[in-house]
């Protein structure tokens, strides 16, 4: 017997921490790190709901999320390195939009 509330609350806290980090961090790589935190929180919720509902769909989605996260990091880091090459600075506040 296990209580699904424990991983659920853990995941919620991880998500909150991730949101906090994304909003607070200025460094682009650190923002990516915090996005990973949020994705992991979602993964944890998906796996836990699998346990709750005795299904496997959640795990399938976790795999999809992990693949997408890998793609996201690949493109994100390419962007960051490009930015660094252009500006020698990866501070997201200093990026001019438009």
């Amino acid at each position, binding site marked *: 017997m296990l209580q699904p509330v424990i991983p659920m609350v853990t995941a919620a806290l991880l998500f909150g921490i991730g949101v906090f980090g994304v909003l607070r961090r200025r460094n682009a790589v650190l923002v990516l790190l915090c996005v990973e*935190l949020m994705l992991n929180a979602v993964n944890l919720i998906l796996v836990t709901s699998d346990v709750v509902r005795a299904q496997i769909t959640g795990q399938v989605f976790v795999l999809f999320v992990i693949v997408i996260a890998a793609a996201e990091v690949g493109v994100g880091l390419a962007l960051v390195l490009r930015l660094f090459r252009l500006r020698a600075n990866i501070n997201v506040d200093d990026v001019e939009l438009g």
Partner: protein
Amino acid sequence: MTAIDVMLSAVGLVAVGSALAVVSTQHLVRAGLWLVVTLGAVAVEFLLLRAEFVAWVQVLIYVGAVVVLLLFAVMLTRAPIGRSTDLDRPIGPALLIGAGSGLGLAGLFAWVFRDMRVNPPPTGSAQRVGEAIFGDWVLPFEVLSVLLLAALVGAIVLSKKDT
């Protein structure tokens, strides 16, 4: 509280604690290393929830590749040893929104799942996950491969030198 509950709580504490370190440390590279701890802890949670396959995929892709890429990028963009001073914005709004969403969701989950007890499912899920992916979810899987290809092309184009 059964033994598995205790372990879930302990590993959850590790995950949350190291996640806090990720968002609060002033050492750039250490943030990435703390993220390794968080991801490892989440992988252990997966193991405890009997999602073995997903747990090891998490280790292989996240710890073995994603974090390494992140650390690689951090080191390529001049990571100093010691504290950096310009990593953070003012703490106020971020704390408000982050704590709001995190604690709000936590409260919601705690309320909804407060009395639920479930039996852990049987282990050995690689085959079941495979059947699910290539049965019900084969179309999303194919779309995902196109997405990966697009990401690959995009990353190459972005990191090519201007000619």
